[in-house]
Structure formats: structure tokens, C-alpha cells
């Protein structure tokens, strides 16, 4: 690891000012991804700006019935919070499906959203990788890509966004609140992560020096149910092969509202708008659920080793929607 400076920010303003004054500096949340990548030499910041003690560690009710989650709320606190478990169960379940108890105690909401891909070439500085070193190529395409993208990828990068939490946030229409050198702004979670295109080095639309201050959830639909499900290589403590977050509202057998997002398929949490179009207004049956999944997944372009993800995503979708439709 390269030596680096350390600054503990006392306020959001101080953190953002330091971020603007020191290009190349990194904000330190829980450090469970950043410190790991520094050990691997993938990240070599000259300065860490520790935001871990900023007063952004609360979950607050919004006047409109929504919820504001501070960027420094730890993953374990987020998953346990009663308003999250009771009104946004998919979010609690997604967080609990990720990492381990120890890691969730340390990891923050902001850091979770910004965690980097687990593509093995990205993590290995002896290998080329367009995301780590633009222009060097993408060995994953011809090499180990079983865990990587089947949809929305480019010839330059086939990485997946690994956060489980982000998948639930995408289905729940959350927004990311940012504070940067040029002021504050909000970005929907579904537009926060990018597709790789010819700029795979940019995971998100975050601008230099911008700090995530909070995630906001709109009011939960009273009559809807939500849940998150993840398929992985072992029963626990493994990243997703495919995951699904879904919100479903059924009245008299007909679907009133549906929101669906996939994890493990793309460079960002994949909000399945085409599937939602098939669902809304249709009868809540297995047939509908399958047709909805197919409508979304026709756009999939799997690589030689990861074609299994397409039927896996379809089956997960049908299972999750059938379970939600059966509740009441």
C-alpha cells in the first residue's frame, strides 16, 4: 500500500471542501471496499477524507411519508430499522443478503452504493482492465466472466455492479442525495450507476468531490408487498449470481402496480421497465409473470459462460412475483 494522508472531516462542508481541494483524495466510509482495494493496489489515494463520523447516521421520517437514510447509517442498522423492515422489506432483505454480519456492522449506506465490481481482472493489477486502466482491454470477455454481465454490457467492459442493496433501492424508486463543490443535487438510484459504454472507468454519474449525504425513499404503497431474493453459489456470504427485487400490488386478481429490478445481470441495478409494462393491468398469474420476465430478458446478450443467468433470472422473477401475489 502507498503511504497516504488522513483527514477526519468534522462537517459535510469541510469534507466537500477537502474533496475539492485535493483531487485524487477518497472519502472513507466503513472502508470495507476501499481499504481492500488499497491493499490490492487498485486504489492509491494520496489522501483519505474520513467521513465516518459525520452526523449523517440517522434514519428520519419525511413529511410526505417517505424515509431519509443518512449516508453513514451502517448496513446492519439499516436492515434492522423498524420503518425499513415494516414498510420497505425488500430493502432490509437485500442488505441482509449481502456480505457478513461483521462487514454489515462496518459498511455504510453511501459506501455500499459505491462499492466497485468484483470482476477478478479489475482486482488484479497485473492484468489489463479497461475499468482500472482505460485503454488496456477487457480480458474478461474471453476469460473468466461466469459472474459477469448478460445485459447492457459493451465491448469495453462486461462487469456487474455488485451491491444487493442498490437493487432494492432501484425497485423502490429511491433517490441519491449529493453534496458537491457545486452544491447539492438529487439523482434517482436508477440513473446513478452508468452502463459501461466506452467509458467503463466511470461506474456512476458522481462528479469529482461529490459526497453522498443520504438516500431517500418515497412513501411506500400501502397495499403493495415487496421482497428481495438472491441466487448465489453458496447459501450465505457470497455475491449474487442473479438477484431480484420486486414490489407488487394486486387487487381482485389484477396487477395494479409492479416494480422489478435485477442484480447480477448488468453494470447497474437493472430496472425492468419492459417487464413492468406487461405486468400492470394483467392477471396475477404464473403465465403473466413468465411473459413479463421474457419481455425484459429478450434484450439479454449472454457471454459463452454466463448464459445460465437468463433462465435463472426468469425463474427467480416468476417465483418472487408468485409469492408476493399470494400474500395478503
Amino acid at each position: 500500500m502507498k503511504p497516504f494522508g488522513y483527514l477526519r472531516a468534522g462537517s459535510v462542508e469541510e469534507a466537500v471542501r477537502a474533496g475539492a481541494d485535493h483531487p485524487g483524495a477518497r472519502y472513507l466510509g466503513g472502508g470495507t471496499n476501499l481499504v481492500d482495494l488499497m491493499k490490492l493496489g487498485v486504489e492509491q489515494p494520496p489522501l483519505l477524507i474520513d467521513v465516518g463520523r459525520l452526523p449523517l447516521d440517522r434514519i428520519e421520517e419525511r413529511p410526505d411519508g417517505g424515509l431519509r437514510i443518512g449516508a453513514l447509517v451502517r448496513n446492519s442498522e439499516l436492515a434492522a430499522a423498524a420503518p425499513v423492515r415494516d414498510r420497505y422489506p425488500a430493502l432490509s432483505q437485500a442488505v441482509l443478503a449481502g456480505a457478513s454480519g461483521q462487514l454489515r456492522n462496518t459498511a455504510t449506506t453511501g459506501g455500499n452504493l459505491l462499492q466497485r465490481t468484483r470482476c477478478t481482472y479489475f482486482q488484479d493489477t497485473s492484468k489489463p482492465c479497461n475499468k482500472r486502466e482505460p485503454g488496456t482491454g477487457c480480458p474478461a470477455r474471453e476469460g473468466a466472466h461466469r459472474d459477469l454481465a448478460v445485459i447492457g454490457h459493451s465491448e469495453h467492459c462486461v462487469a456487474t455492479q455488485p451491491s444487493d442493496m442498490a437493487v432494492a433501492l432501484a425497485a423502490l424508486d429511491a433517490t441519491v442525495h449529493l453534496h458537491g463543490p457545486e452544491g447539492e443535487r438529487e439523482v434517482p438510484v436508477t440513473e446513478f450507476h452508468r452502463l459501461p459504454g466506452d467509458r467503463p472507468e466511470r461506474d456512476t454519474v458522481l462528479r469529482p468531490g461529490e459526497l453522498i449525504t443520504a438516500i431517500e425513499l418515497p412513501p411506500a404503497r400501502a397495499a403493495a408487498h415487496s421482497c428481495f431474493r438472491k441466487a448465489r453459489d453458496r447459501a450465505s456470504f457470497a455475491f449474487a449470481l442473479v438477484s431480484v427485487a420486486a414490489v407488487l400490488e394486486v387487487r381482485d386478481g389484477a396487477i395494479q402496480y409492479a416494480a422489478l429490478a435485477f442484480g447480477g445481470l448488468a453494470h447497474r441495478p437493472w430496472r425492468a421497465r419492459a417487464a413492468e409494462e406487461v405486468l400492470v393491468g394483467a392477471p396475477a398469474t404464473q403465465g403473466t409473470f413468465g411473459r413479463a420476465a421474457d419481455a425484459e430478458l429478450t434484450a439479454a446478450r449472454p457471454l459463452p459462460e454466463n448464459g445460465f443467468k437468463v433462465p435463472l433470472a426468469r425463474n427467480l422473477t416468476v417465483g418472487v412475483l408468485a409469492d408476493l401475489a399470494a400474500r395478503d
Partner: protein
Amino acid sequence: MESTNQPAAADAQATAHRQPPLAYDARSELVLHVNGTPYTLTLDHRTTVLDALREHLGLTGAKKGCDHGQCGACTVLVDGRRANSCLLLAVAQDGRRITTIEGLAHGNDGADGERLHPLQEAFLERDALQCGYCTPGQICSAVGVLTEAADGFPSHVTPYTAASGAPMELTPDEIRERMSGNLCRCGAYPRIVEAVGDARDAGGAES
């Protein structure tokens, strides 16, 4: 490379001007409260809590398995919650209370003789180890599991219908899931789950 060569030195200066190589201190003074004792240390920022414990304080109970958050051998408690000490920068934990396996037994200051923590007792009783390398991390993790369950933290296998905030029941499935961040190369898992269950029954969260 040593150089007295004028242009090269000017070059280096120009680069230095654009990007000051180390305008920041690479070390800081900090305090870690380890097992009840405050230690003032001056550490390179790269030092993790795990390395501070092992290399600077001589506390070698917490083990380095993977050094990347993947095995749990380095698990300690920070302000009462379990964490992977290999991913914690010591400087960022300034002022925090850290409990390691060495600090779990009562009376280890020699006051009234050593009394093991109920989880240590349970691991011995169940013979929940073979080589022992993962054990300090398993035990610290299990201490965290008992507190988390008492505090109403759910897990991946907790039914969504379980009441929020109420203490969570630690079934064997719950114990397995909650302990999944601690790997054991010797495969002592069945006994570990039993030992954690024994400590749960003995009311281990309060000790």
C-alpha cells in the same frame, strides 16, 4: 535514482508542483482502548487495527487469515459490535473501545483468577475446534451474534413476519447464517453451532 542532473531535478520539481507527493503526514497519533486499557500509539496510516493489535500491542489472539474481510479470523468487537479488524484503519478507530479474545475472560487482570466467557467455556465443552486458528474470531463473532439478536437485529433467514425491534430467536439456522462470515478450514462448524447455542441458553449476551 539519485540524480545531480539539472534538467531532471527541474522536471521532478515541476511534477512536484503539479502534484505534491506527500503534502500530508503519513502518520498520526491515536488512542485505542483495548480490553479496557487506553493505548496511545503513533502509527502509519496504513496500519490496520489487526496489525496494531498484533505488531504494536503484542495481542496475537486476533488472527490474520485472508486480510481481505473474507474469513473472519480477525474479528474483534468495536464499541460492542463485531467487525473485521483487517479492514479497519487504526487511525479511523481513534478513541474506540476494542475487545479482543484476550479481553473476554473476566479477572484476566489477575484480580480473582480467570473466569472464562460463557462462549469460551462452550467452545471448550463442545470441543468446537481442531487447529484453533479460526477460534478467536469465531468466539468474538459469536459474542457479537448474541448481542445483535438481543438487540433485535434480523438476519437473512429471519422471517419477514418477525416483529421488528424485538429480540430475535437464535435457532440453529439463525446461528449458521449469522456466523457465515467466519470460515473454518477444519470444518468444525457443527460443534461451533452447538457451542453458540449453549452460550445462548446460558444467557451469554449479558456477560
